[in-house]
């Protein structure tokens, strides 16, 4: 089954000279880990927000697990999607446990179930519940905050996770660790992941397939191996070339 289907989707913001997304079509299968790669301003965030309808498309159709997102209740759609953003967006006046329990509370789970699930989730993202659940976000490091953000997004076991540069503000060591843990999580849960990044190494490391955006259009959508072996003319080729340059820079020191 297809988790996400875009059919000729276009989006232009009011007053903008050109479309943020232009006639974009693609499908993501259930269980895939797809990374969305491209430079700043190419439309990655727009693509993600069209899926959970923080933005509405001007034209085209977006299907989520076969269902047109326009047809269903907005709030219900969102509660079934795990959403993680670079700014993390933890609620500063709530404890870690309360943050993680956000969607379960919206869905009116009973208290014991919420408590058990919160502990389970914190352990899953590598935070000892007893030590962390009563802390406030300001009492955590950036990496720990994003772990809580991840736990919060996983709370009601959504079938699909949308992640918008979630590790963009983290140091490279923490980022590497979280990347590996995310891959493990994907292997264990079989959830569908759509992961936005502007970092080519991150995109190629995490993605089973990589969707490369350039100026609101899909430049190439394929496995990392296929892209490296046969990069599309123009933008993708120069992207791969610049990554190679960077590799050579480090090799000089080996």
């Amino acid at each position, binding site marked *: 089954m297809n988790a996400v289907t875009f059919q000729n989707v276009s989006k232009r913001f009011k007053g903008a000279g050109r479309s943020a997304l232009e006639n974009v079509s693609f499908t993501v299968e259930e269980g895939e880990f797809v990374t969305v790669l491209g430079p700043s301003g190419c439309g990655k965030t727009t693509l993600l927000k069209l899926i959970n309808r923080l933005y509405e498309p001007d034209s085209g159709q977006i299907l989520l697990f076969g269902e047109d997102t326009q047809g269903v209740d907005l*709030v219900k759609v*969102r509660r079934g999607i795990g*959403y993680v*953003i*670079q*700014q993390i967006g*933890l*609620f500063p006046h709530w404890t870690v446990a309360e943050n993680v329990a956000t969607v379960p509370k*919206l869905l009116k789970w009973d208290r014991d179930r919420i408590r058990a699930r919160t502990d389970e989730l914190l352990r899953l993202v590598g935070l000892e519940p007893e030590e962390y659940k009563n802390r406030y976000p300001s009492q955590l490091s950036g990496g720990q905050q994003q772990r809580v*953000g991840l736990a919060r997004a996983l709370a009601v076991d959504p079938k699909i996770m949308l992640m918008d540069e979630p590790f963009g503000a983290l140091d490279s060591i923490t980022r590497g660790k979280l990347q590996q843990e995310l891959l493990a999580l994907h292997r264990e849960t079989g959830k569908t992941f759509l992961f936005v990044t502007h970092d080519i190494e991150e995109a190629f490391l995490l993605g089973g397939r990589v969707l490369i955006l350039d100026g609101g259009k899909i430049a190439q959508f394929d496995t990392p191996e296929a892209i490296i072996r046969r990069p599309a003319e123009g933008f993708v080729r120069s992207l791969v070339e610049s990554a190679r340059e960077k590799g050579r820079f480090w090799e000089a020191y080996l």
Partner: protein
Amino acid sequence: MIDYLVRYYDRLLAALLEHLEIVLLAMLFSVVLAALLTLLCQFSERLSKLLVHLLSVVYSVPSLAMLALMIPLTGLGTVTAVIVLVIYNQYLLLRNILAGLDGVDRGVTEAAMGMGMTRLQLLWQIKLPLAKKAVVAGLRIALVSTVSIATIAASINAGGLGAILFDGLRTMNTAKILWGSLLSAALALGADRLLALAERKSA
């Protein structure tokens, strides 16, 4: 001055209580109306901008003129005074509350929306608690302004401390002028301190 206090303390006390009544009534209705308008503003950015602009225009009308303008509609007395005070307060309250709500971190509101909070859940659970400082600041300004504008309401027979003040002005009675002003200032300061204390307690 002390003389006046001793002789007329019951009259002063009555005026003070009358003043307090006008202020409390005005604040009560102001808060209820501001809450409703805030709710309304959640559904349209444009409406909220328009409303604040409109209220700022109304707010710029001098209070004496506003009171006079209302007389043909609602007559002399306390009711008119309370209405005028409520109208003035809407600008002070709305501007502060909306600015506070707007100042909440974008990442926080986006995460909340993305997880499927409704607009009202977002307002009640996230935005209002995080904008508490601005809301209380608005309340404090409105309260002080209400106490002082309420003295002017005596000009349309609403009573209160203003009545003593205006009486004093008309008869050039310094004691009356001073007591009217002093009590009004003390009331404003006292009420403000009370709110400040309540804010610190709840923080």
